[in-house]
């Protein structure tokens, strides 16, 4: 597995905001901006609509986690040994396997998705709280990667010369790191450094920050390359020349003239980097270097559940499905966004 959006998921070079699109579409409808055209296409795309709804639902679950968990009444960290009638939930003689329920998972009207073997924590509640960790870490990592990649790529492409050489070599080196291996090895190191530097205990708030940082730090290089390439061609365009001849400084040109033209690329890249980072967080937590007990995380749940795959497969199924559906929804939406922004689409 590699981190960062891979070759094929990358947006086509030269995503358009230029006049070409407008002339192509202008025959039918007058005066729509490229953004409006993309938006109209997106609204007609059923897959995009469905995946957007799924994503919104997932975000709502993450935001409303405390409320949702109140509905079933079992906090994610609470050990449940007895049900409402006072009967035991776990078979203590049999290694703590849940009693009853679908396929020995302990599903019941109280515990909708069953309970954990041994501890008896409610799986539904843990799943709901796991959404928070997943989305937050992935979002944080993505924002860091996109900001770093955009700024470094723009600076490298715009200024050229030794700055470009230096930054391009840096991108090459970043891309030749075995990234998952490195992220995995570095997460505990960064966590212990942060602990010593800022005096924060190694809790899961720190862990989440570290994961964001590490994912962002290893995710920017690929985007930077794309941005650099686009900046190289954008800076030669007339509007940049015009701005410069009117006395605009590099800051103005970069952020007011070039950045808006990069937005479609950034949008596509962000939607595709998010699921990559969601998978990466799950993988790291699964391997035991990410989020730790008692905080619920999908990757951790999968790793815990793998020991019970024979006696209680549903325990593994639920977090696995949550992860799969989330990643699929983001990928589908990302693909649709890319298609909607593609000037060549709908003309073949």
């Amino acid at each position, binding site marked *: 597995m590699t981190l960062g959006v891979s070759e094929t998921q990358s947006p086509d070079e030269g995503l358009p905001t230029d006049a070409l699109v407008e002339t192509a579409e202008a025959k039918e409808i007058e005066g729509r901006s490229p953004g409006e055209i993309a938006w109209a296409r997106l609204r007609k795309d059923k897959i995009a609509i469905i995946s957007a709804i799924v994503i919104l639902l997932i975000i709502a679950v993450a935001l409303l986690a405390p409320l949702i968990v109140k509905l079933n009444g079992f906090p994610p960290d609470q050990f449940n040994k007895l049900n409402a009638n006072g009967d035991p939930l776990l078979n203590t003689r049999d290694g703590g396997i849940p009693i009853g329920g679908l396929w020995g998972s302990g599903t019941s009207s109280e515990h909708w998705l069953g309970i954990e073997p041994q501890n008896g924590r409610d799986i539904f509640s843990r799943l709901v709280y796991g959404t928070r960790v997943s989305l937050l870490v992935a979002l944080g990592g993505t924002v860091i990667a996109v900001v770093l990649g955009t700024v470094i790529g723009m600076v490298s492409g715009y200024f050229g010369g030794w700055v470009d050489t230096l930054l391009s070599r840096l991108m090459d080196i970043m891309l030749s790191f075995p990234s998952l291996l490195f992220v995995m090895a570095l997460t505990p190191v960064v966590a212990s450094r942060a602990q010593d530097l800022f005096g924060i205990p190694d809790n899961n708030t720190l862990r989440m920050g570290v994961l964001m940082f590490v994912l962002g730090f290893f995710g920017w290089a690929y985007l930077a390359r794309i941005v650099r390439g686009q900046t190289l061609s954008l800076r030669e365009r007339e509007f940049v020349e015009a701005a410069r001849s009117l006395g605009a400084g590099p800051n103005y040109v970069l952020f007011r003239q070039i950045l808006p033209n990069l937005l479609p690329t950034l949008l596509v890249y962000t939607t595709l980097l998010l699921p990559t980072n969601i998978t990466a967080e*799950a993988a790291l937590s699964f391997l035991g270097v990410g989020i730790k007990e008692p905080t619920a995380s999908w990757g951790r749940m999968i790793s815990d559940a793998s020991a019970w795959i024979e006696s209680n497969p549903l325990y593994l199924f639920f977090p696995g499905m949550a992860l799969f559906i989330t990643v699929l929804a983001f990928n*589908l939406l990302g693909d649709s966004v890319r298609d909607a922004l593609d000037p060549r689409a709908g003309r073949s």
Partner: protein
Amino acid sequence: MGRYLIRRLIQAVFVLIVISAITFFLFWATPANPALLICGKNCNAETVAQVNATYGFDKPLVVQYGHYMQGLVSPGGRTIGSEGNERNCPWPCFGESYQNGIPVWNSIKDAFPSTLWLALGAAVLWLLSGVLLGLIAALRKGKFVDKLSVGLALFGVSFPTIVFGYLLLFLFIVKLKWIPFPDTANAALFSVGPVKWLQFYILPWITLALVFAALYTRITRANMIDTMNEDYIRTARAKGLDERTVVFKHGLRSALTPIVTIFGLDVGGLLGGAVITEQIFSITGLGKFSIDSVLSNDLPAIMGVVLFAAIFVVLANIVVDVLYAVIDPRVRLA
């Protein structure tokens, strides 16, 4: 060509030195004294000083780095251990594990074959299935087969390895019992025989190959569609070549050039360890070795395996560039 190769090799060495330096300083500069990691619970000032002297932690970091690199560069390896108790660590010396004192290179050597089998088998699988699916989809563009393979590819890209791996494990090992539980830790082809070996590796191969197969399907399809619209394909058809020659000799050949690049880099990346797949199927390869080292904070082992993996990535880059020039006559190596 020869000149280009030499220049690339020098560049590669430079990149490796930078990676080794960054890795070394990141890992060894942790304020938490590595000596405390080694002597464990019965630490006192005296034992810490002793450990520091033994491992050279009392020297400046740059000196330690130089000493470390000496073990990788000089053919005689380097000496490790405290004064009066020195021993030679033969080339290539990645140091000794803090956990059990085993030379890291020996562990890497032992773990590597499993990872190699895993990566190569999966690579064959994903290359064949990806290119085939992509080709069929491109030739039947817009038809049912095309939509099916595009859908499959999207599905495959979105299936996280942890989920897919456990799904296979549950279906074929737990439920259907077609394959025994993977408890034969290190299955070498020659000791267990081909049938058991295949049984052991088939699910890991599929698990590892899925995402790549999906990506390759997409790339092949996109490239093939572009290529088949080229003028020279029309020319080939116009001069009366049969369709098979047009598709395979003229079309596929040029559509596959980008695949070579990606394939080389992907395989190179995997030779450093397929951590998740190895963890799911209890394969004692490099990935398992690296995660175990990370979890036990075994610095020399982590450092060794990261460097080892980086070597493959860097080498793969060179191989790919050279191959690319051989396949595509438009590329000139300057």
